[in-house]
């Protein structure tokens, strides 16, 4: 040990004092009874340990000491608290007999003495509760019952609207506007001579009962006033409800009528637009135009066919082999003369006759050809005229289709507006029917109930006070037991358990 490395006397004492002060904070975690007896010896031992650590040449001796002290506290603290608690419980339940008490009340079990606060507090609290109860005024309850009915004789069930659901009715019952009217009414009646003017505020409640009934309860300090309030409340609410329902229906009908007028105006405009259109475009029915176009097209095709036939006949010079065909006759005679000339080649008369016939045939041929050309020319002219006519017909047909489409659109628009008008008219009828079958609230009991008080429940209140007093007594007993400074002598406890953590 190097004496020069040791702190001087004053500094050493200061260090010891500082460590001990810190350890004192640790000892405060121990139970009060343990601390009262052993705090100072523990600090003394710790101071000795600090001095030893300061004298020790080992580095970290103080740190090791603090580590062991903390570990020791961690293991011994729960143990001491547990034992303190066990001791307290044993004292509470098995208090040893005190000679003075036992001499006075030899038959009283001493172990029950800590519990005496419970009955004492219960009795005191019960007495106080009874005294307060005696001063509490009586409460009375009056009620009115409403029945939700319909005016419809057929009994098809309730006509439901948003304001007719049970929840809605219940919420409307306690609306300020209804209760304010009831209070005003009661205030007016109370202002009459011989009546009190005190307008009290009773406790109100509304709930749904069986079979579409609604119960309105009024609870107050005066039976007559509670009853009066219940009667006024029921009447005011029925009036309010009917007025409100009727008002809703009237609003709906007015809105419906307005809509009907609007759509009727629209319908008129649509009809006028259709008539105007028809007047402007005439009765251009697309089917007629189409027929016109089709017939012109057929005529055109016939002309084309005729032209084709004429052009084909140009190829057949002789034309058809019929007795009426002069060219065929001439041709036949020419062939006959040629046959005869073949038999008598020197016959001059045959030659002359053959020459004449051939000249006739040629002249006839030329005549036929010129006639055919003339026909073809005429046909071409007709075809050209027909093409123009056909184009005009086609154009007319297309125009008539567009007009027809527009007309159809206008007709559809008119039909749609007419359907809306019809639906609105039906709605109007429905609203009228609804007004006829409007449900109603019927008062089936007004200001009912008994004049016997419904509160306060004095036995229950007193019982509650007794119970709470007992609970307070229990708390008091615990507080007193904890606040006792000197623990009673406890029986020897077993040392065979619980100290295994002595090793560090």
């Amino acid at each position, binding site marked *: 040990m190097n004496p020069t490395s040791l702190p001087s006397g004053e500094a050493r004492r200061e260090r010891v004092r500082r460590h001990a002060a810190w350890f004192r904070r640790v000892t405060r975690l121990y139970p009060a009874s343990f601390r009262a*007896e*052993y705090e100072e010896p523990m600090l*003394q031992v710790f101071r*000795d340990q600090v001095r030893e650590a300061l004298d020790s040449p080992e580095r970290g001796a103080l740190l090791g000491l603090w580590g062991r002290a903390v570990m020791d506290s961690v293991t011994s603290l729960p143990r001491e608290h547990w034992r303190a608690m066990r001791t307290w419980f044993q004292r509470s339940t098995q208090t040893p007999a005190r000679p003075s008490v036992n001499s006075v009340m030899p038959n009283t079990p001493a172990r029950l003495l800590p519990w005496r606060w419970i009955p004492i507090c219960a009795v005191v609290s019960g007495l106080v509760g009874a005294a307060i109860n005696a001063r509490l005024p009586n409460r009375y309850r009056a009620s009115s019952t409403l029945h939700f009915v319909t005016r419809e004789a057929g009994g098809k069930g309730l006509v439901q609207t948003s304001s007719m659901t049970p929840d809605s009715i219940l919420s409307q019952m306690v609306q300020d506007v209804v209760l304010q009217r009831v209070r005003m009414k009661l205030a007016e009646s109370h202002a009459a001579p011989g009546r009190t003017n005190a307008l009290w505020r009773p406790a109100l409640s509304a709930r749904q009962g069986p079979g579409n009934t609604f119960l309105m309860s009024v609870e107050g300090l005066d039976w007559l006033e509670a009853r009066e309030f219940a009667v006024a409340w029921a009447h005011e609410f029925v009036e309010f409800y009917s007025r409100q329902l009727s008002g809703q229906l009237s609003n709906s009908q007015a809105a419906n009528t307005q809509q009907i007028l609007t759509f009727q105006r629209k319908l008129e405009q649509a009809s006028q637009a259709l008539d105007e259109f028809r007047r402007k475009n005439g009765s251009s029915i697309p089917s007629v135009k189409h027929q016109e176009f089709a017939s012109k097209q057929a005529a055109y095709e016939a002309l084309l066919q005729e032209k084709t036939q004429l052009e084909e006949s140009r190829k057949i010079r002789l034309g058809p082999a019929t007795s009426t065909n002069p060219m065929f006759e001439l041709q036949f005679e020419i062939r006959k003369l040629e046959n005869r000339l073949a038999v008598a080649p020197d016959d001059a008369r045959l030659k002359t006759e053959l020459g004449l016939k051939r000249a006739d045939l040629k002249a006839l041929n030329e005549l036929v050809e010129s006639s055919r050309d003339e026909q073809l020319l005429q046909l071409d002219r007709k075809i050209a005229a027909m093409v123009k006519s056909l184009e005009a017909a086609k154009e007319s047909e297309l125009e008539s289709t567009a007009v027809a489409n527009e007309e159809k659109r206008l007709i559809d628009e008119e039909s749609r507006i007419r359907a809306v008008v019809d639906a609105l008219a039906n709605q109007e009828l429905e609203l009228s029917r609804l007004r006829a079958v409007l449900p109603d609230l019927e008062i089936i009991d007004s200001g009912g109930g008994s004049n016997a008080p419904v509160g306060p429940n004095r036995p229950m209140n007193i019982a509650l006070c007794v119970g709470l007093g007992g609970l307070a007594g229990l708390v008091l007993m615990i507080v007193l037991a904890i606040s006792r400074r000197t623990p009673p002598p*406890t029986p020897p406890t077993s*040392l*065979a358990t619980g100290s295994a953590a002595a090793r560090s």
Partner: protein
Amino acid sequence: MKADHPSQSSPPPGADPDFAGPLTPAVYQILVALAEGEKHGYAIMKDVMETTDGAVRMGPGTLYGTLKRMLEAGLIAEAGERPDPEPGEERRRYYKLTAQGGRVATAETERMARIVRAATRRGLGGRRGAFPSPA
């Protein structure tokens, strides 16, 4: 061989039946420390540390918790307060072994001695032990 079994040993005559079983190390070591004479807390702590070669180091909480219960059980008694001349002038509370504490300590020592004898017979003790400790 019934006597060799520690858990089946009977307490010595006059011993408190509550302490017939094995004592905790802290209790037994305090009893052993006080068998030498009256001691205060710090001296007990130092004695325990020395006799166990530093293996057991009691903290203040464990020491005084154990002393409290031993006092309540009558194993030890307070022997007054007086200053210890060695560390300083502070007055210290001394403790001494009671007759009952002496009996309990003797019984516990005998019980442990029986265990040691049994262990030795079975080759667990001394240099000739069947299971020598590793070098």
